[in-house]
């Protein structure tokens, strides 16, 4: 199950964060997403360590713990997309396609002329679209 999705700006500021857990515990997901930026920073700043992923937006599994996993995706404009999932067994291809759709939704949202770059995304359409992508992902992995 996807617990949370997030978009983080190029200065590591949160642009969009949506949790999909029932409990009122979004704050812990904020923390997880924020800490995952450490891993992205490390990979971006240490190209030696991540030669294979250098030319690719998809950063792969950032953060394996016993209880959840964080996957990352980095756009050319240094916008970071993160997914926190409690599914410990997810196919890489599923996550990749998820990120591609998520990225496309983001691009559409920030293309809105009324959106201020590097400001939080408040578009309801974007939120609905992301929820749709998350649901589709859940359906895809379960089915």
């Amino acid at each position, binding site marked *: 199950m996807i*617990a949370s999705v997030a978009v983080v700006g190029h*200065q*590591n*500021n*949160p642009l969009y*964060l949506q949790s999909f857990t029932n*409990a*009122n*515990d*979004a*704050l*812990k*997901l*904020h*923390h*997880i997403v*924020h*800490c995952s*930026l*450490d*891993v992205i*920073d*490390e990979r971006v*700043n*240490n190209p*030696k*360590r991540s030669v294979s992923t250098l030319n690719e937006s998809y950063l792969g599994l950032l953060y*394996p*713990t*016993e*209880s*959840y996993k964080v996957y990352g995706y980095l756009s050319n404009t240094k916008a970071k997309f993160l997914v926190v999932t*409690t599914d410990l067994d997810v196919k890489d291809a599923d996550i990749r396609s998820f990120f591609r759709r998520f990225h496309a939704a983001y691009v559409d949202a920030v293309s809105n002329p009324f959106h201020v770059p*590097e*400001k*939080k995304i408040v578009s309801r359409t974007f939120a609905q679209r992301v929820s749709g992508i998350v649901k589709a992902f859940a359906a895809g992995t379960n089915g």
Partner: protein
Amino acid sequence: MANYLAQFQAIKNTSDRLVVAVEDVSDLWPSVKEGLEKRLPLKKASLNNKTRNPVYVENLQAEFILTTDSRLRSRFPQEQYLFWFREPYATIVLVSCEDLDEFKTILKPRLKLIVQNEEREWFIVFVSKAHPNNDQATKNAKKVYARLEVDFNTRKRERCCKLDLNGVDASFWEDFDFKIVESIRNTLDRRAQFYEEEIRKMSEQRLMPVWNFCNFFILKESLAFMFEMAHLHEDSLREYDELELCYIETVSTPGKQRDFGGLEHGDDQAALLKPGFKPLSQIVQDDSFREFEFRQYLFARQVKLLFRLGRPLEVVMRGYSFIISFSKTLALHENTLPFCLREVWVISACLAIISSTSSTYDGLAAPDNEKEFYRLHGDLYSLCRIKFMRLAYLIGYGVEIEKSPVNSASLSMLPWPKPSIWPAVPEDASAKVLAKEKLILQANPRMKHFNIQRKQLPLEPSSLLREANRRRASLSVGNLSELIDYRQIDGSGIDGHQKFSPSTTNSMSRTYSGPNLESSLSLDRPMRISEVHVAAEHALENTVTDPDLLKSLSSLEEFEQKYMELTKGAADNYHHSWWKRHGVALDGEIAALCFKHGNYDLAAKSYEKVCALYAGEGWQDLLAEVLPNLAECQKILNDQAGYLSSCVRLLSLEDGLFLAKERQAFQLEVVRLAHSEMKHPVPLDVSSLITFSGNPGPPLQLCDGDPGTLPVTVWSGFPDDITLESLSLTLTNTLNTDEGVKTIKSSDAHILKPGRNVIKLDVPPQKPGSYVLGVLTGQIGNLRFRSHNFSKGGPQDNDDFMSYEKPTRPVLKVLKPRTLVDISAAVSSALLMNELQWLGLIVKPIDYSLKGSLLSIDTGPGLMIDESHTIDINEYAKTMEDKVHAHDSNTITENNTHPLEPKQLYIENGKIALPDWASDTSTTLWFPVHAIDDRMARAASADSPHRQNMVDGMRTIALKLEFGAFRNQIFERTIAVHFTDPFYVTTRVANKCNDGTLLLQATIHSQVKATLCLYDAWLDLQAGFVHVRKENGRPVSSFFPLVISPSSTAGILFSICIDNMAIADQNEVVQAESILNVMYGISGDRSNGAHSPTSLKLGSSDKLFFKVAIALQRPILDPCIAVGFVPFSSNCLRVGQLINMKWRVERLKDLEASPSSSCKDEVLYEVDANPEIWMIAGRTMGHALLSNARGSRTEITVTCMPLVSGHVRPPQLGLPAMDDANISCNPPGPHLVCVLPPTLSSSYCIPA
């Protein structure tokens, strides 16, 4: 073969180095032992690794063992084959012989026997005991050695070397080392090949029923062990890696149900660094090993090799991933394992890896690796910390664990342990249950500062109470409904114990009141949370064997100590790595514990770090969680500045993060502190809370020197109104940065409403330029605040944390100095001299209001204002006329918008206050002035009309206009006004009649732009002239009134004659000049120029009187000297041509009676020429010789050059010493000569 496991283990334990066998044929060992063993370990050995590539091994350990030694003798051939790795890798045959025959007969066959075993690698050391001085013995030894070489060396390989006991040759040892290494290498290669072959064969049987992992393991580990003995650790490690892979494949093969292990005492402590923790024979199971022990064994072997290879980083890397993966494996077998063994095992494994690697890490690795190393240590500490917290939560310390995002993220997604049955409450545990209950009840859920109420984050994946009871209930189905009821009563949701109300406790204690009922605690009654904790604690005590861990869980203090240690370990290591955020987040946990223990200073420091991180990257949700804690620390520490700053930061967080009530509490704190008696006024940056901007629209424009009022929009982020004692803003000139900033202040106190406020600030006069807003400063009580943040016309935006961009839009423009008003004379033509005239001034404001302006007038000499009259003011007629022409007639009515406005002004103290209606329009002011000129006008000769000098009629008037809002603007100008006589007069004698009557013509030239009307004119003649027929001097014919249009002329003719009588009356007072008296009237408009002054004086006659002096000259009646102008030799004069001007002077009479003349035969002359026309060369004045005798004559010549062409008056010769009446001139009057233009000169023309 598995039966050999025990033996194999024993062999591995005993043999740790390569064995070199020594075949001591001649009992030489005691004498050479010392020398040989000194060579060990072998300094440098070139061996081949598994891929047959040479590897240099340093300090290769080996051991010499005599073949007669029991260790080598007692082995069975089968064992030798199986454990080949422990067999000698080289055989040294020690021989000594001094007799060749003996060698041939005895020694050689024996040696042949020894070396016949092909599988052995051997070489012979011939020991010579011969003393160097004993030549015979030496010679014999050489002979025997030579024979030995012949017999045993082959072409491919030399197998002999010679050791002289009395004087060892250095080259021998090199030879010896080489041979021994060569033997070891060959043996190693052969054995490796053998093992590989065997392993390959066995691998082929992997999928067959005969496959036995133990056999495979013995072979594989034998090879690995052999490599390890040969210091080929890399190869050894690879063998273990392959072994591990193979094992995992084996255990994961479905089918066989295998025991997992982990049930023995002490299994809770990870054996990751202890390969010999359990003998392999104990963990063998059928054809394989128990996974729990065996995987740890393999990992321990790998770690040992990695340490030998000096790779602590790899140990940590492999260690962390091993722990994670093994923890998952443990989770799969959790229902068979002791309660929480998985957690306990992870804790001990992490701590073991940390302690082993941190002691071996030398810190000399590359920076990247170092950071990675610390990161992994941080991960290990963090993992250990999570598991430790989980254990602590289970036994009831959860109430004391900070419910922070960090802990919640770690714990709430981590599933509970899943034992097959949740542990039951032990017997006689009622005291413990009560103690736990007490702990839960006494736990004071810390109220957040400012009464912030937040739902606490969960630390449990699901309710522990429910989970525990569910796992118990699974034993006896039937109490499910009760369980649900219980849960409802207990109110245990996610955070059950938090809502454990006292009333519930009471009701519970009724049903569960004493230890005597404890035994009745059956499975069908759900446990209470305190019982769950007691049960878990009891079970853990059985699981944990590590006394340190037991101690750490024994009490809350011990728990917190360990918790602190682990948190600090994780944070410190993360700080050394790339993962700063992890480190800082954990700093927050350290701070929470410090706070709990009253160590507020440390807590504040750590919280500050956390807040700085979250604020810096804009994670406001997380910041809102930590910032109140920091504020509380600062409040306790009495750090007023910090506390205020925190309150302001809290206020400036996004709206949704706090309730309105909470935000009001923050503001109350700020206001309370601001008005409390602070020792020092505290400066505070409120950029995020109070923002400001100029008003939308164009900037305020001010003229240079004008003050103004600048409206500024201030956005207040305070939830309530806030009173500011003062408020000021700085303005920065964008064009000229040298000037620094100007501060403008708001004059009065303000109350800022939440949201938008418009505040007006007084702007004193500023230098020209464009100004932007700088910094807003103000005061709330003793609090001096500053705000740098420029809002963009909307509510302050909290996402704007990165850009403190300065506003670029100017709010104020002070224009460059320009003309704001213009005052000019309304009329350019001349006014009448000596008469009262209206002087018009046009006051023209240029896009600037003249409201309240004051005009000072200072007249120059010869001009005075007639203060008895009022001053007229009206709109500037000319503009009106223009408008009439340009637009339709409607405009006219518009222009008459001030018909009732006062049009008469008075002058007070030389100043005139302009009326308000005239502040924006051009007006004309009419002053009554009087120019005075005492001189009488003179008529000129018609031949040489001499006009009145313009300067004579010029008068000045100095004006000073004070205007602007504060009369701060001053306009000064001096205006020249031209006054003139109404006309000037030229005269000429029109005709000379035979009867002596002269017709004198007086021509009157109008000088004004007005119509003159002559009513009367008469001539008062001077002595020597009389009117013909003694008339009254009126003109010949009377045709008055005579009207003269502007700029035209009129003539009047008088007939006069020369009065011969008058000459005699020398003594009478004679009138030297004739006076022409003119009575005239003028009709003109003051807006055009000269006009009638009669309109000023009511009732006075409108006739004006004007006098002109006319000089009349009597004819020359008695000439003494005649002066004649000699005509030029050439007809034409040219400009620039020198000519001689000649006059002939002739004495007509004897000059006898002239006593004044000192030199009578001379005459004084003077040449008068217009310097603009003539240039005189030489003297213009001098004496010419002229005798006194009548008829004497002389000629005066002056050289001169004409400067202009045309008909010009030539120079005239005057004789100053003579009376004009005695000089007869020819020609008699002024005459003209013609001067031609200069001839064209081509000298400067440049040919093409």
